[in-house]
């Protein structure tokens, strides 16, 4: 509940000379305390500060006690009450903490029109949202060829501008390179501003400043109009062709990761247990293999996969970005968590399956139950205790995950929205030096874990059957 950063010692390492003398030394009544302080703080005249020697915890406590007795308390240690909690809940913490909407812009009006757009993308991202008028405008500029919308040549700025560059005046040298260049840029800007008057003015100025033949003047007028007319379309396209993407933030990612890794781990573990519970040859070896990742530390697991993601996957798939791609990174982390975790819960499910009394199964066989019926009405109800405990452990562990993501993505995870709660707490406390805020977040996480696992136990306990 304090502002204290947790790492700056409460007994200051260095103090301003005047502050130390007037605020502390003069107020101390006991001479022995004064002597003690002067024995650990040495004056550095040049820097005008007192600095503390490197001392142990007991001496530091003594200093704290003395400082308290003279009511000296630096701003950093002040009591802030529930401020941290209020800040977290009212959204005043850095916005990477919360899920938030992010508008992604696919086309920027100031760049030239894309030459081709994939049909799928165009339908999904442009045509769906466009009004009939805008749709007509789009189809006027682009035509469908195979799976691409191709920009028609008459609307391609490159071809339009080419007409001016091929004027005889340019090749004769009466108009300079830079003159044309400046003019075209100007028209470009004016077209985006959709300012008709400015267009007229700059055309007139351009024609006046240089000598053109009658034919050339018409061409200039025509091309200027063509470029100018494109401006409207470019503006419209840039406003339509956007997509709202949801950034998960710390909170969102924690839940996202927990949900899918819990599903992944439990489904895979249950399937493996079912398979290994039969008379499969070599099941001991399989069990050993599937459990092996679980005995490795998360750091080793993370580094192994990190190498795979940076080495093998780009080589096999030809796609370079894996862990640094915001759309793939969360799924890759879930994959690794599943790979590492499923062995443990496979053992839990196996124990549950082997606990099913054989007489119940025999009875069902005599009653003529099919394999599926036996699974649905005997295996599932009798294995619910194992499901309960596995869900409980996986949920709690997934909400607390740290090592794996620390080693695989680290601080760059804020960019790809792959920072879980605990890692955020760690950075808050030890990189941003906000121990107060970090512990507040930790307590909130604790409440979240209690709430979710408590709810899950409530729901599952109701479904358990007494054996």
């Amino acid at each position, binding site marked *: 509940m304090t502002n204290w950063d947790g790492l700056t010692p409460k007994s200051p390492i260095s103090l301003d000379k005047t502050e130390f003398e007037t605020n502390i030394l003069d107020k101390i009544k006991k001479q022995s305390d004064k002597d003690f302080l002067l024995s650990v703080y040495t004056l550095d005249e040049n820097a005008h500060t007192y600095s503390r020697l490197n001392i142990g915890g007991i001496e530091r406590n003594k200093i704290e006690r003395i400082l308290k007795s003279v009511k000296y308390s630096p701003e950093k240690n002040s009591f802030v009450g529930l401020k941290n909690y209020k800040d977290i809940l009212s959204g005043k913490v850095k916005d990477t903490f919360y899920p938030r909407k992010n508008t992604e812009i696919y086309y920027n009006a100031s760049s030239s029109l894309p030459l081709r757009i994939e049909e799928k993308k165009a339908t999904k991202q442009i045509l769906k949202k466009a009004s009939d008028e805008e749709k007509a405008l789009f189809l006027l500029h682009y035509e469908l060829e195979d799976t691409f919308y191709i920009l028609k040549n008459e609307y391609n700025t490159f071809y339009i501008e080419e007409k001016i560059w091929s004027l005889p005046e340019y090749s004769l040298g009466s108009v300079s390179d830079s003159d044309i260049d400046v003019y075209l840029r100007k028209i470009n800007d004016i077209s985006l501003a959709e300012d008709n008057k400015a267009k007229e003015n700059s055309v007139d100025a351009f024609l006046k400043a240089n000598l053109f033949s009658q034919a050339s003047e018409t061409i200039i007028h025509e091309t200027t109009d063509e470029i100018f007319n494109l401006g409207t379309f470019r503006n419209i396209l840039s406003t339509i062709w956007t997509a709202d993407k949801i950034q998960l933030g710390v909170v969102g990612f924690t839940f996202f990761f927990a949900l899918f890794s819990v599903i992944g781990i439990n489904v895979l573990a249950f399937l493996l247990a079912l398979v290994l519970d039969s008379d499969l040859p070599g099941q001991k070896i399989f069990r050993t293999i599937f459990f*092996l990742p679980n005995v490795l530390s998360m750091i*080793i697991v993370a580094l192994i996969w990190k190498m*795979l993601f940076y080495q093998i996957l780009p080589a096999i798939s030809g796609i370079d970005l894996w862990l640094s791609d915001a759309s793939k990174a969360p799924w890759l982390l879930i994959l690794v968590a599943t790979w590492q975790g499923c062995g443990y819960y496979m053992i839990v499910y196996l124990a549950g399956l082997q606990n099913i009394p054989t007489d119940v199964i*025999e009875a069902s066989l005599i009653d003529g139950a099919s394999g599926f019926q036996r699974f649905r009405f005997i295996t599932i109800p009798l294995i619910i205790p194992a499901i309960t405990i596995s869900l409980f452990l996986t949920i709690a562990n997934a909400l607390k995950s*740290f090592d794996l993501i620390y080693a695989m993505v680290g601080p760059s995870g804020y960019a790809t929205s792959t920072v879980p709660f605990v890692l955020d707490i760690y950075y808050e406390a030890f990189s941003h030096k906000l121990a107060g805020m970090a512990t507040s977040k930790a307590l909130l996480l604790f409440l979240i874990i209690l709430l979710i696992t408590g709810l899950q136990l409530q729901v599952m306990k109701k479904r358990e059957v007494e054996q």
Partner: protein
Amino acid sequence: MATLKRKHTSPTTKVVFGIVLIFSIFFFYPMIYVIINSLRESADITRFPTGLPNSFYMGNYIKAWNEMEFPKVFLNTFFITTAGVVGIILTSSMCAYMLARTTTKTSWIIYSIFTFALVIPFQIIMVPIAVLASDFNLTNTPGIILMYWGLGCPTAIFMFHGFVKSVPRELEESAAIDGAGRFYTFFVIVLPLLKTIIATIAVIDALWIWNDFLLPLLVLREGTIQLAQMRFNGQFLKDYGAMTASLTISSLPIILFYLFLQKYIIKGIAAGAVKG
């Protein structure tokens, strides 16, 4: 019973076996990849990531061994783990024994406090722990061992407590009649009866402490295998040969441990799950 067992040669079993086999190869591939590449030169790996070694190149291992200061960090981790496990078992078994054998209200309250600590995840209290550790000068090897005792004892006490209750009192009573003191009774008569649960707790805690990363990161900053591995990763990020070699040597001890004590590990997990 015979009707329950399917024949090994039934076609479904064969298909299932095939699927599981293929899946397990994919599953195991990351580890194979690490071992194979640890025997190749880094330049070769960068050129053909999925290739096979031409010869047994040991340079990576030498580099990893020296750069990680492997003998030093291995011994340090080994010491922390052993001292941690022995301490947890000694303190928790004694504590649980007394708590289970005294029926006063105080002992019930103490037991409740310990079991409540089971609910609190380490990650929630890590910041205060790190701060307290530096206040009490515990940012060293003995300090972290002490912390492991504290962090490990709630689970251990909970498991011992349940087990001690199933040990018949008559044995202790007859020992007391023969004139045995409290300590003698505990160490000579009760402790040997707890062997199975001790093995379970020892194996689970050893895996936990050996593989722990967060607490050493907060408290020690360097000196355990996990921390050395992480630091090595920072230095030799692009040196894939050295990286794979270091990953191999740092996971080898724990894999051997697992292969030898597999029975206890699996029993421990199964027992914990059935009880929970």
